[in-house]
């Protein structure tokens, strides 16, 4: 494992950064919010990203993708994190498409992956429930056999970009009790299935999320993604990889928040000197810098470990999420504090980073959760 970007990756990073600067300044994010955009992102921009090949990065070449790794996806996500681009990489690519790539039948893959890669179809993963907190195995939604098929009933929350999804991958229990690992099955459910209701949730970070209610939604046997009752492992693998992608985005966001704060420290004067000349602020800035550098190393290592199918990957994922969660909160808290009063106003952009940082920190498990997981995987 080499913790360095290849020349191709460097080039990709630069392309994405240039694209983001041109098409997705922070003002775009603000406008989407202020206009109360119904889906919260731009489908047109998404198609452009797809045309540039980014959406298809983890999708096999046979299905129209680039068949590259999580490492490349992270290279794309970091600059997008810098500008808080709300396009649905996490939901459609890292959760939805990834579940099909890892566990989907040839038929499911052929039906969805080319359309996803082309930026034409959206997917979402509906796994979280009111009582699940961060536990992937705490699933109460039930799928009961109904002839050759199944009927699914339950309630899902915070389904990322669920409002635009053309199909949802729903985690349901086909056997066992609420917290059992065994008995979880993933189903591919078209958004227009009868009994499926999707309602938008409004989050503090303005990202698209939805409440999903399944009232006896009927699907046939071919809707199963992966093996019946064996969904926990697949779900964990998908969420682990998505977590690293989220961390890459967080890394971009915290780097941008810090860059803006540094610029402010240099420009803003108080008592006749730049506030960045105050040693207490300098030392705090240096501490932030350290945290970001450490987070960067973790993101790179975790992405490569996941790509390599390394045994250490789950621990590195938890390492990375714990660090990025803590670092993002530190960096953005300090960002607001160092901006002073203006940082508290809605019209200043720095607060967007604070909101996104907290939302990301509390997605896929917070730092406590991942430290506990690290310890558990370490046998203590």
């Amino acid at each position, binding site marked *: 494992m080499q913790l360095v970007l290849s020349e191709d990756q460097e080039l990709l990073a630069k392309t994405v950064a240039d694209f983001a600067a041109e098409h997705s300044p922070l003002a775009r994010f603000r406008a989407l919010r202020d206009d109360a955009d119904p889906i919260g992102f731009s489908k047109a921009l998404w198609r452009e990203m797809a045309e540039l090949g980014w959406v298809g990065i983890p999708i096999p070449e046979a299905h129209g993708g680039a068949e590259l790794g999580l490492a490349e996806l992270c290279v794309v996500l970091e600059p997008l994190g810098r500008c808080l681009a709300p396009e649905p990489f996490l939901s459609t690519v890292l959760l939805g498409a990834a579940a099909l790539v890892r566990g989907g039948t040839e038929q499911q893959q052929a039906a969805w992956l080319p359309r996803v890669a082309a930026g034409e179809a959206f997917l979402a993963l509906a796994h979280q429930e009111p009582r699940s907190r961060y536990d992937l195995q705490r699933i109460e939604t039930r799928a009961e056999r109904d002839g050759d098929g199944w009927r699914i009933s339950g309630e899902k929350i915070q389904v990322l970009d669920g409002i635009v999804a053309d199909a949802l991958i729903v985690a349901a229990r086909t056997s066992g009790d609420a917290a059992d690992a065994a008995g979880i099955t993933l189903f591919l459910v078209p958004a227009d299935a009868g009994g499926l209701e999707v309602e938008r*949730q409004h989050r503090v970070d303005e990202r698209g999320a939805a409440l999903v209610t399944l009232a006896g939604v009927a699907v046939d046997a071919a809707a199963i993604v992966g093996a019946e009752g064996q969904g926990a492992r697949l779900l964990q693998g998908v969420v682990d990889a998505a977590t690293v992608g989220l961390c890459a985005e967080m890394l971009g966001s915290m780097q941008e928040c810090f860059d803006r704060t540094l610029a402010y420290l240099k420009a803003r004067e108080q008592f006749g000197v730049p506030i960045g000349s105050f040693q207490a602020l300098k030392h705090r800035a240096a501490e932030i810098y350290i945290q970001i550098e450490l987070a960067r190393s973790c993101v790179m290592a975790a992405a490569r470990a996941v790509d390599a199918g390394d045994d250490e990957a789950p621990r590195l994922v938890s390492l990375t999420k714990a660090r990025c969660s803590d670092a993002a909160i530190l960096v953005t808290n300090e960002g607001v504090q160092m901006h002073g009063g203006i940082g508290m106003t809605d019209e200043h952009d720095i607060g967007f980073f*604070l909101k996104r940082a907290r*939302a990301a920190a509390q997605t896929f498990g917070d730092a*406590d959760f991942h430290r506990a997981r690290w310890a558990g995987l370490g046998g203590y």
Partner: protein
Amino acid sequence: MAELEAFRAEAAEWLDANAPQAIRSLRLHAELGGNWGGRHPLWEAPEMETWLRVCADKGWTAPTWPGEYGGGDLSNAEAKVLEQERKRLQLPEPLTGFGLSMIGPTLLRFGSEAQKQEHLPKIVRGEIRWCQGYSEPEAGSDLASLQARAERDGDDFLINGTKVWTSYGDLSDWIFALVRTNSAVKKQAGISFILIDMETPGVSVRPIKLISGKSPFCEAHFENVRVPLANVLGEIDGGWTVAKALLGHERSMIADVFGAGGGARGRRATLAEQAREVLGGTPGEPLPDALLRDRIAQNEMDMKAFHLTLQRSRDAAKAGQQPGSESSIFKVWATEANQRRTELAMQIAGPQALGWEGAGFDEAELDCTRAWLRARGNSIEGGTSEVQLNIIAKHVLGLPD
């Protein structure tokens, strides 16, 4: 003591006889929080207007102020008894606001006779609502670097500039503001403390939205606003002295607010209650999450240690001792403990802490999110934590510049 007890009986009787039935045990609205008065008053309940009037007639909206300005002429001890009786009878305050708490006492100390005659009775009667114009967009912690200027024009000043963080500026009638009246001298000198009627042409006010949503804060612009020289409180160019007296007052108010657990705290569950609800487990037994349990205990203990320190400070004052330096820690500690509390509440709420509005989040969860965002400002407003630490280092610890 007997006299005081006689007064207690008298006060209780009067309150009971005069308070309209409808306002007893009135639960104050979060947004209004009492009678603020003013030219365009907002009443919690129609009877609150009556309540204000009867109290003002008796001077009991400002019980310790001199009767000649409409006050109640009570001693501090009597005023305390009156307050105790009011609370015992669960009656709301007849009047609240910056007139009573900030500019009134300042007028009493620094105002000319004419100024007192003009303003104090209107404050007592709740006819004029006041706001504060100190901070400026470019000044920040360096308050004395303010740029709003007043230029002499005959018997008037012409005022130009912008004030920010003016709480309830959009609902207020008069503003007390710091303006630069002399730029030839060094920073703190050359500042005047001036009273401005906000209906004067050239004054405009715009609410400030915060990251937590709407707020009481406003930005006030002054464009060639004409104000008589006579509206300066204290000496011309001597406003810093007046302002400092008021600022210390503001900071201890902020500490008091957090010391009491935050304005709206009373209606909120404690962290332990919130955690029990979210995390479950057997009531009375340790919470199932030992990490959150430890942090909740830490935060409760932070608050408790703070309250004990407040008490120590007050007890020392009561015992006639010189005020100790411990009061310098109140603002920074109380606000940061409150920030930790709201962040912890976010962590306890987990995925349910991410709501902004609408479906899928209950009121307590949404409140948790907003409170967290709002609390970020606690360590900035009223003197940043950095400024507080500088003050401690310099004035308490005597560390060199």
